[in-house]
């Protein structure tokens, strides 16, 4: 709790207006590490965080769709964000983490797992502290970036989970067709 309050304090000073900070709309982001960068996803989209599990490969899938796992009886596809963003691949082991997110699908919600290096922190970020992404943003396709945010003197790349996941799964279909 105190950690969260501390975060809010940071936000307030970052906003530069201590009094109005309470009025600004803040969203919570779960941050995770991928290579040397830190990314954030809207925490509302996150269903759970789970450890590495045996993944069953699905034919005709692009390389970043590792396959499917059994999540308490549901068949859930798993996307490797390192491969998706064109980063160097590292072997999956017990420390590999899967962030399970839910996104809108054609028929209700879709549950999809994203493989990341490690989960980092939860930040409260005010909307006005989010800056639009620059045109050149290294490996990540700009369309999947919601914006950039500065947090504890680090840069956080905020991802558009819906866009990223839907595009990944849909391109998986195209590859199959």
């Amino acid at each position, binding site marked *: 709790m105190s950690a969260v309050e501390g975060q809010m304090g940071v936000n307030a000073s970052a906003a530069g207006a201590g009094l109005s900070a309470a009025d600004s709309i803040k969203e919570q982001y779960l941050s995770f590490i991928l290579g040397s960068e830190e990314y954030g996803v809207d925490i509302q989209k996150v269903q759970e965080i789970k450890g590495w599990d*045996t993944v*069953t*490969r*699905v*034919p*005709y*899938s692009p390389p970043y769709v590792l*396959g*499917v*796992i*059994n999540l308490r*009886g*549901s*068949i*859930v*596809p798993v996307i490797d964000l390192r491969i998706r963003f064109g980063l160097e691949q590292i072997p999956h082991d017990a420390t590999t983490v899967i962030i399970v997110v839910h996104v809108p*699908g054609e*028929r209700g919600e*879709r*549950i*999809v797992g994203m493989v990341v290096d490690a989960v980092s922190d939860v930040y409260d970020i005010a909307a006005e502290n989010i800056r639009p992404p620059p045109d050149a943003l290294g490996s990540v396709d700009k369309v999947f970036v919601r914006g950039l945010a500065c947090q504890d003197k680090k840069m956080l790349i905020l991802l558009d989970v819906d866009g990223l996941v839907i595009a990944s*799964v*849909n391109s*998986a*279909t195209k590859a*199959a*067709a």
Partner: protein
Amino acid sequence: MSLDLEMEEIVKVFFEESFEGLDAMESGLLTLDAQADRETINTIFRAAHSIKGGAGTFGFLEISQFTHSVETLLDEMRNGMRAVTPDAVQVLLQSVDVIREMTQSAQAKQPIVTVGADALSGELARILAQKSGAAAAPAAGAAETAADATTVAAPAQLPAAPATSAAPVKSGPVVPIIVAPGSIEGWRITFTPEPTLFQTCNDPLRIFHELTSLGQLEVTAHVGALPPLDAFDATLCYLSWTLVLRGAVEHARIIEVFDWVEAVSKIVYEPLYVEAAGAAVSKPGAALPAAVPPRKSAAPEAAAGAAVPATAAKAAGDAGSIRVATEKVDALINLVGELVITQSMLGRFAEKYEPADLEALRRGLIQLSRNTRELQESVMQIRMLPIGFSFNRFPRLVHDLSRKLGKKVELKLTGENTELDKTVLEKIGDPLVHLVRNALDHGMEMPETRLAAGKSETGTLELNAFHEGGSIIIEVKDDGAGLNKARILAKARERGLVQEDETLTDEQIYNLIFVAGFSTADKVSDVSGRGVGMDVVRRNINDLGGHVQIFSTEGLGSTIRIRLPLTLAILEGQVLRVGKEIYVASLVSIIETVQPTREHLSSIAGRSELFKHRDSYLPIIRLHDLFDIEPDSRDIAKGLLVVVEADGRRASILVDELLAQQQVVIKSLETNFKQVPGLAGATIHGDGTVALILDVPGLITNFLERQSGRVELAA
């Protein structure tokens, strides 16, 4: 919030019961056709009565008003005041359709279209009028005679009549009615309470309830004054109501009811002089003109058209609930009880385990596996419904269709109690309708032709359902003309489906009728003959994991036999291994598995590989190539060939090893991911990992198409 949810539940039950009631009415009416007995009429009447009551309660006034007129007619039949004529039965059957359409719209939360109801109300009024002794005005002439109060047609409902101009509240003798004008009164009450109504401890519901004891009450709530949710104060009353009370009620009685709220409400009483029960019969919605869309064309076609989106929306919005017999639930509870006992017995071992307990532990585990299996079976039982639910539409269909085609057909249903999975049941309905229509239209001959052929004038159409092994068999059997092989073959040659010199087996010829766009019908009727249908039938059945077979003898009739799995949730699977990957194939599609020897293998142009299986050559599907897997060996002779069949086509699939045969629970890949070619779904192994299920028909089709594509390219 929770009240809303509760209400939703109750309304859902109303819909379910209404549809059941409508089915009951329909089947009752169909038996009335042959002979009218009091008990059947009573059953029909009761069903109509409950629907009317329920619809009124939940504010579906269009339904309740229309059903009311149906009820009136039935009541007269029930009391013996009216003979049961085929004409009346036909109108009642149409009424059932109309009520069903309206109920479906209501269920889909769409505005209720009353065109169909309006058209039929005229018919109903006409029939009711015949009784009352007045000259039965022919429908077309009704407009002219409308002004005559003694005639009893209902101009507002006739196609020619303009939108009911006045929808009169105090209509006087403008709308002709059955009962003499003025004999029954009613009241229209506009009830606008102060917002502080609730604070005076008054409950409008109590008042309405009181009014219903005086007569038939229709309530319309006006919600226009409702504030946005954030400004909503639950202690205030934002609603006002328009009440229509039918019946000979004294003004004083009504004032008495409103006595308590008079001080905090604005109440306007308007007497309805001639809006008597009869008027309600002939004019649904008359009391609430605003709620009824203007009637212009009352053509039944329009109604049918309007019903289509409603039905579609219903299918989409149907949350899908099942009514389960109490004994099935009780059986489940018993099993869960046993499971709990087994669990506590096994739990003991976790606390203290002596090697001597091994035998007891093993027994406990055996018991646990038995409990699990029984529980699984019982849970599956809940999804099982008798096929009668699907069959019960056919008496009506055959009745209507044979009448239309001028054929005499007797329908025999057997095995209606055969149970199958709800999903299968829902999806098999349409294919069955196609098959029955085909049988009636193409199979069955006209009575004179039958007599000339030495058969009885009345044809027999049989629908049978029974279990065979792990499948359910449904047969559609007619004693009509049978399939004309020569004609099918000629047509197929004409269309280039079959080469001139090709000879086909009977089965292959019959299978031609499943080809899309294939029809031997000389003329296209509105029943069938367009050549769409049979291909859809086969596709639907294949989608359900079943297959169709045709047996036919010329001159004696045809039998179409459908084999379906009992359930879609569980599959008898054969586990296969290719390299490091595990797949599951449906056992039903596997004919046998063979270890090929080199002399049985051959290849065409070095491309497509064939395997000689008994007398035929089967294409070899290399699963490792198709799915990009690193196999143990690429040498076919070192692997196993699984001979599979789907849609009458065979192929062999190359795998490395056969593993266990086991029941697997089918999980959807699509829910969270996508449909993948060659895969029918996924399942979960005992160790918690996922295995993919092969879509054997899809694999064969894709593979053969690709093969033929390649050959064409090469040529």
